[in-house]
Structure formats: C-alpha cells, structure tokens
C-alpha cells in the first residue's frame, strides 16, 4: 500500500553536515560544563573546611591554627582551582560563570577570612588574582576572578566575621571584636555604593540585608560588653585601670 508521508527520514546531506557540527559543539560544551560544576563543588567543600579551621582559633593558639588554615587554603588553590583553570582554558570565562561561581565565591570567603585573621587587612581582588596567575598556561588568557564573584564572596565574609567577633568577645578579646566591627562596618559602607551597580543586584540586595544584620549583631555584642563593663569601676573601685571587662592586652 502507498503511504502519503515522505520517506525522507534522513535529512539532506548538507543540512546533516551542519547539524553534526552543531551536535558536536553542544556535546562537548555540555561535558565541559559538567566538569566545571564538579570542580566548583570541590572548591566549595574544601573552602568551607578552611573557614571552620579559622573558627578554631582562640587566644593562645592563633599562629598554629592560622598556619594550618593557610596551608589548606593553598591546597584548595593548587588542587581544585587548578582543575578549574585547566577546564576553562581558552573559553570565555563568562559563558560558564554560573557553573563555577559558587565555588569561587566560597574560595574568596575563605581567602579573605584567612587574610583578615593574619594581617588584619582586606585581601584585595588583585592580590587573589595574582596568586592565581601561576596556575594558568602563560600562552592563554589567565583565569581571573571577576569583581562580581569577589564582592559576593566578600558579602558572605561578613557573616563569618560576625561569628568570629562573638567568639573573640567570649575569649575576652574585646579589642579584636571592636576591630572586626570597624572592619565590617567599613566593608558594609563601601558596598552600599557598589551593590546597586552589580550585574544582578537583587541577589546582592538580600546579601546586604543579611550583612547589616551581622554588623548590628557585632555592635549589640560590643554594646553589651560596654555597659556591663561600666559597672566594674564604681563597684569595685579598683585602681587597676587596665582591668576592663574582658581586657585583651595580648591581642597584637
């Protein structure tokens, strides 16, 4: 019996040629995306471990704890970020940004936290990027963390600094906490002007709200130590003027 429909189930060869090119392109690209996602997950999980290591500091073990954290951090860089760099070699970094952005943000969070604890300063984007340079093949354009991921990581940093500040107050390191407070306030203030200019500012808006909460938590903790400390002198009348509530003469 006849059939009405066309029998041409195989497309014309020129069309087929074009489409096998498209198909190959899509296959390779999707595979690469998968590898990038996996590298990003590894960067995230190992950066989180570095952050936890930092939270293990107390008054008397700073050096050893931070030394280990820095070591772990460079392992993250050398092992996992290196993998990412390798994958992205030669592609437009922006095309796969959504696939690796979470890992990079967490790495920024860990790296800036370490730096603040060791040096008391903000690790600049240029400094981080300089550290990444050796990972790239000199012949192709090196992977550089973009402003957006750096800022998003920084926004999360303030949450970790809040935890650090509460811990430091418990350990009697009030000045350390106040230093964190000033630092976080400064970051917050700077970001108020930068946040609305981000590519996707709605995410950042939420992060700004959370950041303000963190700032206020530190401020409230400092307030509380302050008013409580005020009772010391009138009641005890000690002549030991350095006897503040949770004095930390050994900080720095």
């Amino acid at each position: 019996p006849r059939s009405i429909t066309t029998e041409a189930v195989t497309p014309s060869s020129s069309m087929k040629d074009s489409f096998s090119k498209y198909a190959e392109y899509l296959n390779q690209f999707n595979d690469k995306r998968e590898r990038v996602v996996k590298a990003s997950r590894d960067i995230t999980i190992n950066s989180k471990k570095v952050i936890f290591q930092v939270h293990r500091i107390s008054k008397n073990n700073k050096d050893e704890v931070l030394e280990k954290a820095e070591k772990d951090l460079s392992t993250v860089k050398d092992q996992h970020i290196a993998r990412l760099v390798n994958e992205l070699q030669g592609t437009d970094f922006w095309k796969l940004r959504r696939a690796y952005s979470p890992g990079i943000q967490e790495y920024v969070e860990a790296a800036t936290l370490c730096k603040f604890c060791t040096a008391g300063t903000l690790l600049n984007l240029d400094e981080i990027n300089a550290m990444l340079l050796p990972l790239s093949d000199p012949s192709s354009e090196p992977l550089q963390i973009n402003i957006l991921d750096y800022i998003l990581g920084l926004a999360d940093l303030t949450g970790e600094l809040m935890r650090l500040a509460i811990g430091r107050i418990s350990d009697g390191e009030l000045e350390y906490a106040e230093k964190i407070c000033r630092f976080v306030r400064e970051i917050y203030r700077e970001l108020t002007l930068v946040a609305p200019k981000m590519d996707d500012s709605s995410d950042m808006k939420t992060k700004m709200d959370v950041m303000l909460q963190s700032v206020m938590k530190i401020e409230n903790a400092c307030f509380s130590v302050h008013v409580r400390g005020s009772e010391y002198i009138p009641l005890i009348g000690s002549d030991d003027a350095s006897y503040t509530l949770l004095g930390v003469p050994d900080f720095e």
Partner: protein
Amino acid sequence: AAVEKQFDEFRHRLEESGSLRDRIRAVATEIESTTRIMHSSLLLIHQSRPIPEVLEKAKTQIDVLKQLFSQLGEIVRESPGQYYRYHGDWRTEAQQVVSLFGFMHWLETGDLIIHTEVEEKLGLNASEFGLDVEDYLIGICFMSNELPRYVVNQVTAGDYDCPRKVLKFLTDLHASFRLLNLRNDFLRKKFDGMKYDLRRVEEVYYDVKIRGLASNGDPKGDQTIQET
C-alpha cells in the same frame, strides 16, 4: 585607604560595565524595533502578496540590522572576553533576527539558512563577535512556528503545491534537530513545538492530497523544492 581605593575602583568598573550594558540595551531595543518592522512586512505573505514584493520590502531592513550589529560588536569588543557577560541582553533579539532571516532565505531558496550564513549577512565575525549556536537553533525553531500558518493561508489562496514543499523542508529540519543532544530546557521546549508544526503541515498536505488538489501526487524523492 587601600580598601577605599579598591572599592572606588570597583565602583568605577561597575559603572563602566553598567553604562556598557545601557548602550547594549539601547542598540538591542533598536534591533527589536527593526525586526518588528521587518516582521510586519513579512506578515503580508499571509495575505498572499507575491513573494518577491514582500521580500524586497523586508530586505530594506537588512542593512539597518547589519549596521546595528556592527555597533553591538564594537561595544562588546570594548570589554574583551566578556561576550557572554552581556549576552542575555541581546539574545532574544538575535534569535528573532535568525528567525526572520531563516524565513526569508527559505522563501527565496527553499533551503535552511545555515549558521555562518546568518553571521555573514549580519557582518559578524565568529572569532570576534559571533552568533551563539543556541541562539541560532532557537531562532530556527521560531521560524518553524510560522510555517503552518503560511501553509494554511497559501492553500486558502489556491497555492496547492505549497504544503508538499514545506512538508519536505520541515521533515528534514526536524530530522536534523534530532541529531542534537539537548540539555537546555528552553531549546528543548522550542524543539518540542516543532513537532506540532510538522504535524499541522502534514494535515494540510493530507487535506490537499485527498481532494486531488496537489499538483503532483507523489511526494517521494522529490528534490524539486529548490526549483521554485
């Protein structure tokens, strides 16, 4: 102060990229408005105006588009390696361009416009500022959505050979798409829609066939589409 300096620079750079984006959006809006005019001209095809006349009118916009894409390319090249950062701001418009060029090309030649042909018509250079492959494919799906309507109106106007030609073309196109492993949900959804276009064209072909209206009852192995 170091902190302040860094953030000053950030603000500066973000403002720069913000204004870049504004300029991109401005060009994209013009592209959009040009494709609307082009589409408007092409719509007359559904009222059975002669193809050459319709195409001629639509083609007057090609140079405008070429010009706009050249502007777009220049803007994007200011920020090297960041094509995909701003891609979302013009991709819908690019897909629409592909769809229209594809339809016009098919009307003229009976063939599928290929990726590099679109780039060429727009004066794009793949190594610097090219057309994304997925945008090309999505645009082709949009083009396919126009075909059932075209077939229905052509038959209404008495052109009974049209269904056969469109059916041949759409069958080939559909088979080609099946070679792809799609991941992107949007593209896959668009491709699913192509199945319905194909079905609709088949139905029209059938309607014409059983009434003995088709000029040539045998659709097999026919390669005469290009002859038109």
